């Protein structure tokens, strides 16, 4: 037993490291990484509070999808400190298993509610689901809409995500976008990630932010919802098309600048000739 190991086993030492590593793990691989961390640290298992907290943060940041009656994303937007998540529409609090990504139980709860904002939320949900069905693979996507405040002063929060997890073929990916709007301003954050790790480790990391002025008319919920989702759709599509264009033009530009597939002569290097010539030059 080395002296070093005794120190390292103190939680103060490894908590920061665990948090950093799990936070930066691609979605779909957190459980595997936690298992390996336990092996390295020793005398600890994945159910330890430090591991569970890191996993919880990871799931929240990646808009994890939880299985229950329906698959849904849960967000801590309305309750950052508690050990449950709020489903505003159904007036419920939800408890989950972060390791299995499952909903364990739901309880009825009384939540502050505004009828006009409820109307807008429901209309937004409808439009969002339409957007998802048209441009996302529905097996692996989800969205949420929530609000805080009342008709005179409100903020709406939307989240959209799609996930690819294919561990047997060594790849994973996530599309994670979060939006919020007030009466006059819409802001969004987008994270696109891809990870391929057969014989290596290659990762795409793409982030973008959006901001646009809007005007929300609560008396016309359906129309307002359409406009807002339409704006989100337009901005996200502009981004996606931009990615497509980049992927079409980059390989040529980038790889050509890096290393030729063959020398400019069109043939591989003649080692025999070069070895004799260059070594002879050396002697001079």
């Amino acid at each position, binding site marked *: 037993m080395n002296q070093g190991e005794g120190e390292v086993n103190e939680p103060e030492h490894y908590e920061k490291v665990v948090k950093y590593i799990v936070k930066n793990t691609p979605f779909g691989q957190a459980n595997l990484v936690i298992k390996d961390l336990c092996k390295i640290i020793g005398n600890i298992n994945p159910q330890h509070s430090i591991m569970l907290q890191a996993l919880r943060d990871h799931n929240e940041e990646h808009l994890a999808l939880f299985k229950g009656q329906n698959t849904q994303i849960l967000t801590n937007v309305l309750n950052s400190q508690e050990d449950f998540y709020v489903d505003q529409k159904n007036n419920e609090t939800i408890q989950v298993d972060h390791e299995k990504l499952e909903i364990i139980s739901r309880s009825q709860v009384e939540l502050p509610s505004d009828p006009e904002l409820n109307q807008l939320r429901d209309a937004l949900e409808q439009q969002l689901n339409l957007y998802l069905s048209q441009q996302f693979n529905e097996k692996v996507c989800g969205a949420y809409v929530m609000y805080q405040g009342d008709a005179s002063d409100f903020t709406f929060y939307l989240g959209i995500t799609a996930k690819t997890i294919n561990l047997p073929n060594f790849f994973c990916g996530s599309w994670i976008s979060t939006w919020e709007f007030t009466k006059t301003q819409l802001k969004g954050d987008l994270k696109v990630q891809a990870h391929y790790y057969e014989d290596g480790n290659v990762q795409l990391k793409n982030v973008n932010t959006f901001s646009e002025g809007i005007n929300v008319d609560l008396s016309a919920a359906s129309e307002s919802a359409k406009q807002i989702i339409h704006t989100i759709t337009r901005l996200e599509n502009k981004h996606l098309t931009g990615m497509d264009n980049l992927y079409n033009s*980059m390989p040529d530009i980038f790889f050509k600048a890096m290393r030729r597939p063959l020398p400019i002569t069109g043939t591989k290097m003649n080692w025999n000739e070069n070895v004799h010539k260059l070594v002879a030059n050396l002697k001079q």
Partner: protein
Amino acid sequence: MESKEKILACLNILKRLPPTQIQKNAAALASLIPDYAEELYQKIDKPLDIGQDEKGNQFIQSEFNRDGDSFRSHVTNSYYPPIDDAVYPSEALRKLELKANAVFDEYRRLYYEGGLSSCYFWDKEDGGFATAWLIRKNVEKTKGIEDGSWSSINVIDIKTDGKSKWTYKITTSVVLEMNIIQNQDVGKFNITGTLTKQKEESFEAPAGNKDLELFHIMKIGTLVEDVESYLRAQLDGVYFGKTKDIVFQTRFLEGEKHFIQQRLGLAGEFKQKYG
């Protein structure tokens, strides 16, 4: 055995973490196994650094020419910063090293048209020797690319059966980084990563071991050329093809989803009908 398992677990984790932060990731994991940190650092592929000597001649800095915090130049055979009591290749091996660098520099010129190359050799206890042939190339701002770099790390282990057969085992890793200029449509876009390949070949030495040094350089050089060319093609497919597929599997361009699913549907029908 326990240390081996822990190091393996660290390497597994490193494979999953963003390669843009390889230094930070390695340091974080090393802090959990301080007694094996050295061993861990030696097994990591990361972009190669460049150093220079008192005359301004550049050389690549890697695990293979490092002693403590100093690095040996392939040009002068001295360490920078200078240290006493360092590790040097034997005289015979240093002669081979000089020749290899001259030849590899030509390879670099032909394929990379720029960049920097270095070869380092070291003696091994089993009587054989090993060598690292390294290349670092940067791509500056050009047509939408903010910056990018290519690092080749070719490590070759050379053994003989004592008679006339020589076996060369190569492990090549290419570490690539590419940053796209912040553009309006796409924001900050970065693809970074490593791909690795191994290969082993054996050859009969020339009669009477004539020009054995040149023979080694030719054989090693040919292997390096083959594996690097292979990885370049792979990277092209993985870097762009694969990462794009991963995203576009879940997220469709306007109007495309119907088209793609229709195509999948037709393929399914075909399969059913014709097995």
